[in-house]
């Protein structure tokens, strides 16, 4: 179906190696499961790494309460079918203060409902390592990150003080107060993720496939109305259009793309031919210059 599949075997083996190194070296790891395509691949690789045993760590989902309904349904089905432990955490303080993506700028909303929530959950669970599905091809500051990404006390990323990381040797020995984010998909690209999903016949959230959905176009970005909390500006109406998502997050902050790709082969083809980068549809990344690096310094994935 698609060219270039033999390198996926190498990437898969590298990811399994990383999972096993982290599981062997850290006391209490957790897998950040955000339901999207990268998390799907991440979870699949975790199962492969420890097979026939189950992954020796729980999953953690930071629920902002603004995820697409299809995502939550997919999450619950996956966890049930695979018999995994899932921790769901919401920042209830943020919820009580009604921090939401309509009334607050993306930077504030993300900080409270995602970054702070994540830190609360990691601290509460006493986790010293968290697996994430971040890839270096996603964004310029992520392109700079190690596989074992050390965080100073308070989960701060200090990009100027990253540890050397040589060959296949992953040094997980922690200093006082340090924790680690582990990125098994570091060397995967968006194209690799889709080709792997197609080859391994993995289930993904239906929102990735093109379908007629109610769309509101705002500032040139297409938002899909997922529930009654949508606030229409004067003159706006939802119009049915055939769209899909390249990346999934909170629905008011994640833009769809027009597409006819309604099966995996078509998605792979569309991804490899894409002229725009994947996170162009992530509204929170464009709020400020260097937005991702700032969020990462504060503890975001």
């Amino acid at each position, binding site marked *: 179906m698609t060219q270039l599949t033999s390198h996926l075997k190498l990437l*898969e083996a590298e990811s*399994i190696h990383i999972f096993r190194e982290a599981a062997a070296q850290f006391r209490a790891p957790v897998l950040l499961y955000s339901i999207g395509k990268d998390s799907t691949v991440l979870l699949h690789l975790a199962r492969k790494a420890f097979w*026939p*045993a189950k992954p020796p760590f729980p999953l953690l989902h930071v629920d902002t309460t603004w995820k697409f309904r299809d995502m939550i349904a997919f999450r619950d089905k996956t966890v049930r079918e695979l018999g995994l432990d899932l921790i769901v955490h919401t920042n209830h303080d943020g919820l009580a203060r009604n921090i939401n993506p309509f009334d607050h700028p993306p930077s504030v909303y993300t900080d409270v409902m995602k970054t702070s929530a994540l830190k609360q959950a990691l601290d509460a669970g006493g986790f010293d390592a968290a697996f994430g599905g971040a890839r270096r091809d996603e964004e310029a500051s992520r392109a700079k990150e190690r596989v074992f990404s050390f965080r100073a006390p308070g989960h701060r990323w200090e*990009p100027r003080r990253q540890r*050397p990381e040589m060959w296949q040797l992953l*040094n997980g020995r922690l200093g006082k107060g340090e924790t680690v984010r582990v990125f098994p998909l570091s*060397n995967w690209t968006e194209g690799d993720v889709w080709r792997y999903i197609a080859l*391994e016949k993995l289930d993904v959230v239906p929102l990735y496939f093109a379908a007629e959905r109610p769309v509101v176009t705002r500032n040139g970005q297409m938002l899909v109305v997922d529930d009654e909390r949508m606030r229409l500006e004067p003159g706006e109406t939802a119009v049915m259009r055939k769209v899909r998502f390249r990346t999934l997050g909170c629905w008011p902050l994640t833009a769809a793309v027009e597409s006819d790709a309604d099966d995996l082969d078509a998605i792979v083809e569309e991804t490899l031919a894409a*002229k725009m980068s994947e996170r162009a549809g992530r509204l929170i990344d464009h709020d400020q210059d260097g937005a991702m690096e700032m969020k990462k310094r504060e503890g975001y994935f």
Partner: protein
Amino acid sequence: MNLAALQEDVSVETATLPRREKGALVRLLTCGSVDDGKSTLIGRLLWDAAGVTDDQRAAITLASHNREVNGEKIDFSLLLDGLQAEREQGITIDIAWRYFETPDRRFIIIDSPGHEQYTRNMATGASHADIAILLVDARHGAKRQTRRHAAICDLVGIKKVVLAINKMDAVDWSEARYREIEADFRAMAGSFNFAQVVTIPVAALTGDNVVHRSTAMSWYAGPTLLDYLEAVDPETEIVDGPFRMPVQLVLRASGDFRGYAGTVTSGRISVGERIVDARSGLGATLRRIVTMDGDRSSAAKGDAVTLVLDTDLDISRGAVLSEVPRRPTNADVIEARLVWLSETPFDPEAGYLLRTATDLTPVTSMSVSALVDFETLASQPAHACNVNDIADCRILLGRAAAIDLFRDLPLTGNFVLVSAIDGATVAGGVITWAQAGAPQVGDNVLVLNRALLASGVCADLGDSPADLAEFNRRAQEVAILLRSVGVPVLIEI
């Protein structure tokens, strides 16, 4: 067809070749001194070879406004320098990873910083590369930092080097200048173990000989950089190496399942063959090779698998499973060449741990015998070692570890040195010599102490740093000679 099925097909088609399709994935490093144009070269390569999306092009074009460099409108380095501090200062601080593919190949590009201060980041990048592109500025030729980077590439095991002689536009596209730098570099490369050195004259800013052939240098008939990268064979290792699999963890599951999980780092193994644990010397027969895609009959270098043996060897993480005939050394004394990465200098009194494949072993004592001089590339006797130095050293381990020599089996012959205090990675190195049976004090062992040496073999030496280093070197040499004839020796100076 899933990935496992696909893999079976591949191995059938290429039964006589390494079982992986050759060159599907090429890991590429750019290095060289500061301001020689590394990020610009890679930015240009991505820009011209279509590794850049439209929104990134728009953002770079916008950000390049008011940053005109040498009359060019686009600052290609912005594609790589992703940290705010890098953009503000116009320098590269940490390595950047970029990815692109051509119809036949997937490339991982590792762009490394040129500043001496960030050598530890360059060493990190180099250790992941199959091929290095070493840049020099055609106006200046190789600098001290160029030689340091070449030495680090050599140390971490890179066998193929492209010398990209950049900024040819600034020397009027002069063939004579190109030949001069090429000759200098070839003379210098003789100090290293590179298997292949290719030189290409380029101008990263204008793109000459990066992706598009230069019209200004008709005297150059060789490949463009991209031509070379698409054709080069990244595989340099021996195909027929002895089987090794460092154990990462022991997996237990229902039904008494007990398997050793790890990645095969060398050779291959089939069900029914004998396996030995190098540390304990215990042997067993391989009963199953387990993966989630089903059991396999054999596994080879690069495969992440779980091995089930016919008897319980009582081994754990850190063990290296090996074939019986060619085993690792169960060593507790090693010699190594390392690059010191920590701002804190080497301290013989500090506590260190040696992290090899999956093992972590306490270091009993460690001494430095020589440093590489980056002017001459020769080794000079020394006993101290600071950040960014390349040093030869001897390490005594608190217990034996399964060790190979790096030149034979890189993945069981490399290590990082870890601070026992804060866990930091302070050095990365390669094992050049390993031996079992470091003597313990109290055994029937010859102690080479200071007084003994000063009264004879070192009687001509004084207290200057150079003399102290020479004292240490002679002590090590005497110990090597004695050990080679079977005399257990301990150095206490």
